[in-house]
């Protein structure tokens, strides 16, 4: 990608730049509640981007990514709770390492399996982690969950009194996730993954080490998901096994990417930017009177996308975007 002054005189250059600047100044005028929605949008775009590496590019439908998420979350909270270790180390380094180790075990067990078998065996691994953390009450506090020890405003402990710092961290995470996905997509590994996704046997015949490629993809995905878990714990201040290790969360990572468009850099972002506000607003408007109505909307959208736009909304949104760019002024060279 070449960046020059000229590229900012073309809509293709200045529109994303304007949007990025808009995202950067958003916390200055957004009310707290909407800022919260914005944070969940950025955050879910990030964790769904992480899922997309293994689920989208490699086409291995992991339904156990919550296991990695939970390790990042519990690593951060428990190590701060017991040893005062900051979440940077406890969550991102140690929790992330634990997630990578679990991804190696998962790979060993599950990569020989295809399709449905893979999906359900990853689901089982997620469930085992959830049950272990539920069961080890003396350490994890079991089903009642655990609150983060309060440290006040502290970058070291990733705790902030206002929402704006969380917003910027979530934004940075999303951009990081997009960058890594983009980088992988362009790399040799990315091409291997796409080949495996299309036809694993054919890819192996031409010399792709499919087990290795899938393992790298899963480990990267696991590490990023654990980072997401750490962020979640620090932002919400409370975690419990049923949520952070839950099947619902694993499904949500995948669902966002699928609605947006699997195997694309923008898919998870589009999915999250459409679904999260839709879900939050139906919940806020109708959730009090009609319990669960936001999940009906969610499920309905998923059904509609899978049936009518199985490649996700990315193509459609991309088309609208192109048409929008056509309308903007440009300096031809």
């Amino acid at each position: 990608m070449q960046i020059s002054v000229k590229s900012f005189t073309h809509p293709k250059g200045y529109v994303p730049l304007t949007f990025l600047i808009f995202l950067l100044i958003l916390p200055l005028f957004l009310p707290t509640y909407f800022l919260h929605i914005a944070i969940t949008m950025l955050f879910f775009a990030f964790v769904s981007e992480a899922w997309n590496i293994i689920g989208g590019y490699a086409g291995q439908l992991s339904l156990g990514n919550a296991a990695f998420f939970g390790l990042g979350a519990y690593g951060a909270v428990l190590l701060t709770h017991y040893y005062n270790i900051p979440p940077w180390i406890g969550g991102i380094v140690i929790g992330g390492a634990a997630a990578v180790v679990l991804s190696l075990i998962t790979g060993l067990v599950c990569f020989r399996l295809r399709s449905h078998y893979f999906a359900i065996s990853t689901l089982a691994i997620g469930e085992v982690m959830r049950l272990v953390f539920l069961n080890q009450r003396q350490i994890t506090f079991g089903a009642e969950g655990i609150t983060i020890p309060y440290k006040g405003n502290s970058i070291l402990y990733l705790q902030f009194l206002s929402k704006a710092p969380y917003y910027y961290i979530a934004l940075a995470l999303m951009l990081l996730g997009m960058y890594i996905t983009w980088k992988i997509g362009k790399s040799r590994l990315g091409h291997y993954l796409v080949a495996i996704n299309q036809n694993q046997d054919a890819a192996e015949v031409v010399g792709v080490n499919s087990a290795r490629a899938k393992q790298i993809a899963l480990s990267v995905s696991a590490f990023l998901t654990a980072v997401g878990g750490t962020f979640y714990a620090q932002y919400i201040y409370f975690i419990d096994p049923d949520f952070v290790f839950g099947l619902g969360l694993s499904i949500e990572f995948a669902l966002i990417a699928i609605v947006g468009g699997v195997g694309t850099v923008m898919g998870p972002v589009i999915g999250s930017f459409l679904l999260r506000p839709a879900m939050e607003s139906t919940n806020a408007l109708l959730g009090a009177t009609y319990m669960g109505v936001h999940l009906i909307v969610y499920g309905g959208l998923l059904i509609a996308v899978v049936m009518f736009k199985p490649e996700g909304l990315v193509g459609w949104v991309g088309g609208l975007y192109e048409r929008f760019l056509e309308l903007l002024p440009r300096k031809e060279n």
Partner: protein
Amino acid sequence: MLDATVLTQAIVSGILMGAIYSLVSLGLVIIFGVVRIVNFAHGEFLMIGMYATYFLWARAGIDPLIAVFITAPLLFLIGAGIYKSLLRRVAAAPDFSKIFLTVGISLVLQNIALLIFTANYWSVKTSYERMVLSLWGISISYPRLIGFLGAVILSFLISLLLLKTDLGKAMRAVAQNREVAMLMGINPDRVYVIAVGLGAAVAGMTGAIIMPYFYVFPLVGVNFVVTCFAVAITGGLGNIKGTLLCGPIFGIAESLGVLFIGADSGMIVAFLILILVLIFRPSGLLGEGRL
């Protein structure tokens, strides 16, 4: 502390529960075997069967065991309707479309139930609910015993249907080779409708026979379906014998897990069995089948 009676009691309870797992998984396996769709909404079929049983009892005083004859056709229609309106359209789509279509259906059904029936737990009362059978120091409650016998009988009848009747043979033919089945004059689309309907009907019947000793609530299906996926995969997806064998294995594993590890974590043992089986026999204990 741990004597033979406690252990035997746990194993017996496990077998009683395991027969139910087998039956629910059987529905899952029929749908997968014929239509090649892993139905994530299967637990919701069970849930609908349980709610239907509850209302038949609460409003019309119908005993859950008689409700079987109503929930079966009801769920058959729901299953067939879902196939005709939704699943049929993704027949040629990649696996992830199929999986997530049923995930979407499951989310919608769960939350419609939440909307209509609230999150409360409901149960039925029967004349036999407090009766207990005691044998050699082991006690078995009547509802569980009846549920177990019902599951065994239904599993037997369904296996018979698949193996001996023309309809069952047509289903297996389509499962094994669609093109050849068509040449033999079988209409595969009709068979698909019947297979999904039948799979759902099995879940509906299970919902009725377990209602005397279970609570119904909108998410009741979730716990069941995860276990039944594990049962179906361990037995070999699409393999009827494997499924019937693995239900009790998982039931026993769960109750031993509850005994040795803790009440909320019994399933750890069951999932570890699944993972071990997949390491050594990637297509299940008895191999993947086509019914």
